[in-house]
């Protein structure tokens, strides 16, 4: 236990540390009036000495507690309840979140009680507690009015804590804030500069547009005040006012320009920031400042960069880098698109760019800003070379921060001088391989901008090589960028295919669906490369069978172009012959079917491929039938249905099988690209929710059907208009049936069931399946959402035809 405290008061209010309970558990306070009768009069306390007593470094010593207590008592002589310090301690002592909530709840209850009672003398402390509670993330809205009351009080301490509470507990969107306008106005006119300062600070941090309009005249007046601190605060406050109400910019521009003649750095910094804001807000202000302050700015920059050592403003040997940077930023605004202004700045910019030391962060910050300014204004070519050289130095710096910043600015420099940026290509490529995620991302974005017709091949090669060793986290970004580059420069088909095959092999799991869809469209269009594609994919699949997208593309190609794989049709010169038997090809697909058990899309594709192979390789059909039938009892309806249907096609309907399983018609590339572009825009808001929600629906047998969304993607793949037109005339009627049959598009029973009767007798017979809607029309959950609707079900029909080819 601590030694007995020196004041009798403390025996009545023991510090919480001596009590086994946190202070908040102590008996509730009696009213101040009652207490004043009970208490012995406090002895005269040597408060002065206490206030001056050096702060004891050991935070929790008795002296410290006593001192705090005394200072609390000094403000509220008859107060009780827990002190701020005790509350913080109690909260920190909590072991669990529940405990913490309990303590906070108790405190809040006490504060509410104090607010609704007269609670005058505890207001100060309660506000401090509320701010702490607010910081922990608990609701504190009930304290908002207390802020206003404190602000309206006469004393400085109350106002200080009141304004702090106002800034922390409220933001500009709260109605309560309007009530404070009057108090603010009074305080802005107060004779005490610190009270004016508080009001300006609050106004600058949270004022709303209405308040800005109401109080702008006061702030304007204060910018003319004699006190430097008031001036700088008023200038920054006007920054906020101008942001909120750009119309007011004209009122401030004369004042802002005149503040630039001051000596005080705080005022200068604030004034420069105000000017920058004015330039953004109004064209007139920009013109005015161009005329009136460019000389002043150059002078300020010259003075501050030539000034001798000034300890007050010195940062790592550089005099006031903050002022440097702000002036440079304003110069950029003024010089942009104005040759005269830019001309005027050239000398001083050259001086800053050459003389600033670059071994410290502060110096580099100035150089960074200077380079940006040179890039931004109409600088001379010599100056630009200087800037690019500085960037080169930055880029080879060992400090990650500097390299990050260099990459950042090169992004902007590329529009100014692409050639100069190209020179640093090697270094930038190195940065793509950095250990730091921020740097990698910047560098990759930059490389993406650097790619052009001449360097696309080496750059892509580098990126693809790096893909092999990249972080799993980073692979997704990298893959997307490589694919995007490859597609952008895909005039040379063979090169594009090669790159895509490599990406699929190395990071097939990160390739987006639309990317491999596009790849399939390209393969289907490049008839002379189909053989090469299927062979390359088959070879890649042997080595990288774990890559999902690779497997899908490979399986699709094997299904379509199986005979080219086996017969080495369409060999390219550079290609070595491979020997693949029919059984090998079936093996590859079977492997995919078995390996990817959870992925319905892949497995469905495998089944379709097997079906197609059964017609390409008649000798294999018995084996294929066996593999397909393994899925007859699959719990996933989609697979079960395909398995049964495909089984019957193979077994019983050999006469129509070959025509049913012809190769897919060439997919329309242009139509796909258009659709893809619109899909990527529409996908995010509308498409996703519709596709994803039904995926969670339960089937009657209680098995959730996964992968509804991929199915939709799959359908999208071939739902171009081209096959519709080619096949439409013959197939309008049976398409409904087929859709029903394969259980993909059976959205609404009306479309699925009714029209099937007339034209489907043959098919019915053919597939020996019942046609009753109740049996076939089990809606496939993936598509049962009304949002996809009927137009989609038509698209789905097309799909079936794409897969089964012209029926």
């Amino acid at each position, binding site marked *: 236990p601590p030694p007995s405290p020196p004041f009798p008061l403390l025996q009545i209010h023991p510090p919480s540390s001596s009590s086994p309970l946190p202070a908040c558990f102590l008996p509730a306070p009696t009213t101040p009036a009652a207490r004043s009768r009970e208490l012995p009069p406090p002895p005269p306390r040597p408060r002065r000495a206490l206030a001056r007593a050096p702060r004891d470094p050991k935070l929790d010593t008795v002296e410290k507690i006593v001192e705090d207590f005394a200072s609390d008592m000094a403000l509220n002589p008859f107060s009780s309840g827990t002190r701020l310090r005790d509350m913080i301690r109690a909260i920190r002592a909590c072991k669990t979140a529940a405990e913490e909530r309990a303590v906070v709840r108790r405190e809040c209850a006490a504060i509410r009680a104090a607010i609704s009672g007269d609670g005058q003398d505890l207001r100060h402390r309660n506000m401090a507690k509320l701010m702490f509670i607010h910081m922990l993330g608990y609701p504190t809205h009930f304290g908002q009015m207390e802020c206003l009351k404190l602000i309206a009080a006469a004393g400085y301490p109350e106002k200080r804590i009141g304004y702090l509470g106002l800034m922390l507990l409220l933001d500009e969107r709260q109605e309560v804030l309007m009530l404070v306008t009057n108090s603010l106005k009074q305080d802005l006119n107060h004779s005490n500069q610190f009270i004016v300062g508080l009001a300006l600070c609050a106004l600058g*941090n949270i004022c709303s547009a209405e308040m800005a309009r109401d109080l702008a005249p006061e702030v304007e007046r204060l910018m003319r005040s004699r006190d430097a601190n008031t001036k700088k605060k008023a200038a920054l406050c006007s920054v906020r006012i101008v942001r909120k109400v750009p119309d007011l910019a004209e009122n401030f521009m004369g004042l802002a320009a005149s503040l630039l003649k001051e000596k005080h750095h705080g005022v200068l910094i604030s004034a420069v920031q105000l000017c920058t804001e004015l330039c953004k807000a109004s064209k007139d202000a920009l013109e005015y400042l161009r005329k009136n302050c460019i000389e002043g700015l150059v002078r300020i920059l010259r003075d501050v960069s030539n000034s001798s050592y000034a300890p007050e403003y010195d940062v790592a040997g550089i005099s006031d880098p*903050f002022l440097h940077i702000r002036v440079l930023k304003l110069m950029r605004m003024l010089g942009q698109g104005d040759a005269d202004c830019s001309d005027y700045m050239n000398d001083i910019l050259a001086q800053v760019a050459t003389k600033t030391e670059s071994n*410290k962060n502060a110096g580099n910050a100035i150089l960074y800003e200077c380079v940006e300014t040179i890039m931004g204004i109409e600088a001379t070519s010599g100056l630009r070379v200087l800037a690019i050289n500085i960037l080169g130095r930055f880029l080879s710096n060992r400090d990650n*921060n500097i390299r990050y910043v260099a990459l950042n600015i090169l992004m902007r420099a590329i529009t100014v001088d692409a050639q100069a940026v190209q020179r640093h290509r090697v270094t930038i490529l190195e940065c793509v391989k950095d250990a730091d995620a921020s740097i990698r991302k910047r560098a990759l974005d930059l490389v993406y901008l650097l790619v052009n017709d001449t360097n696309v091949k080496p750059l892509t090669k580098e990126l693809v090589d790096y893909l092999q060793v990249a972080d799993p986290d980073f692979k997704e970004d990298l893959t997307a960028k490589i694919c995007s580059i490859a597609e952008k420069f895909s005039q040379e088909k063979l090169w594009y295919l090669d790159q895509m095959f490599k990406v699929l092999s190395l990071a097939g799991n990160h390739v987006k669906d639309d990317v491999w869809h596009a790849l399939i469209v390209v393969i289907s269009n490049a008839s002379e490369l189909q053989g090469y594609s299927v062979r390359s994919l088959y070879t890649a699949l042997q080595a990288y069978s774990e890559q999902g997208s690779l497997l899908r593309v490979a399986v699709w190609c094997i299904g379509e172009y199986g005979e080219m794989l086996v017969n080495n049709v369409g060999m390219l010169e550079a290609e070595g012959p491979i020997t693949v038997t029919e059984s090998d090809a079936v093996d590859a697909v079977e492997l995919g079917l078995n390996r990817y058990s959870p992925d319905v899309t892949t497995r469905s594709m495998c089944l379709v491929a097997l079906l197609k192979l059964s017609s390409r390789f008649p000798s294999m059909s018995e084996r294929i039938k066996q593999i397909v039938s393994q899925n007859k009892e699959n719990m996933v309806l989609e697979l079960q249905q395909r398995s049964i249907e495909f089984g019957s096609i193979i077994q019983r309907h050999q006469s129509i099988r070959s025509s049913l399983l012809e190769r897919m018609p060439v997919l329309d590339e242009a139509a796909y690209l258009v659709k893809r572009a619109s899909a990527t825009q529409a996908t995010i808001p509308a498409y996703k929710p519709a596709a994803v929600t039904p995926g969670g629906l339960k089937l009657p047998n209680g098995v959730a059907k996964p992968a509804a969304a991929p199915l939709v993607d799959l359908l999208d793949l071939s739902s171009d208009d081209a096959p519709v037109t080619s096949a439409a005339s013959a197939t309008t009627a049976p398409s409904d049936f087929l859709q029903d049959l394969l259980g993909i598009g059976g959205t609404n029973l009306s479309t699925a069931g009714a029209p099937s009767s007339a034209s489907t007798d043959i098919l019915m017979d053919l597939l020996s399946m019942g046609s009753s809607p109740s049996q076939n029309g089990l809606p496939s959950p993936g598509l049962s959402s009304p949002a996809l609707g009927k137009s989609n079900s038509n698209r789905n029909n097309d799909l079936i035809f794409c897969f089964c080819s012209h029926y």
Partner: protein
Amino acid sequence: HPTRSRPPSTDADPRRWHSRLSAILPSLATGCHPVRPRRQIRAATPTRPRSSSRASADLRGRRPSLAMINFVLLISRQGKVRLTKWYSPYTQKERTKVIRELSGLILTRGPKLCNFVEWRGYKVVYRRYASLYFCMCIDADDNELEVLEIIHHFVEILDRYFGSVCELDLIFNFHKAYYVLDEILISGELQESSKKNVARLIAAQDSLVEAAKEEAGSISNIIAQATK
């Protein structure tokens, strides 16, 4: 303050909170990181929550920026918030979310990486002092290096004001830390580049409060005497 330093303790020990922020000030005072070897690609980094995918629609888009510095955050190594100051409007809900996302993003970063994190189209500049992370969120085209200097400026002023500041100072005297911050930033813009000037202004205001307390104290004495 020689008595304030405590013996070094393990990570689990809460007393390590006492470690001086300024213990690492000397190396920072140079304003430059110690030269670090370029690291080659690591095999794997710890997976980090992807902020963008979880971001709600209201926060995903960039809001029009209202300030150079959109907010200031002080987070402890354990993810506890020590100070927050918002210069752009965020609702309470958004604030909680921002803090959660950023602490996930920043606290997991290794010590040798750069001090910038890209987040929802903004950049968050952070710097670690002992157990505390000082974070400031700026626009994508602002000067990151300068913000590092502003953070250091703030820390040096805190250090001067508290006399070798430590995390506990900022916990128990959080309001004073806010007062200091209010003398450095208004409306997300820097207002004073002189540490001495800030210290002088804060001291003047503190003495104003002291004087008011004295006055209140003497009045209470009079009342006490009268009621005796």
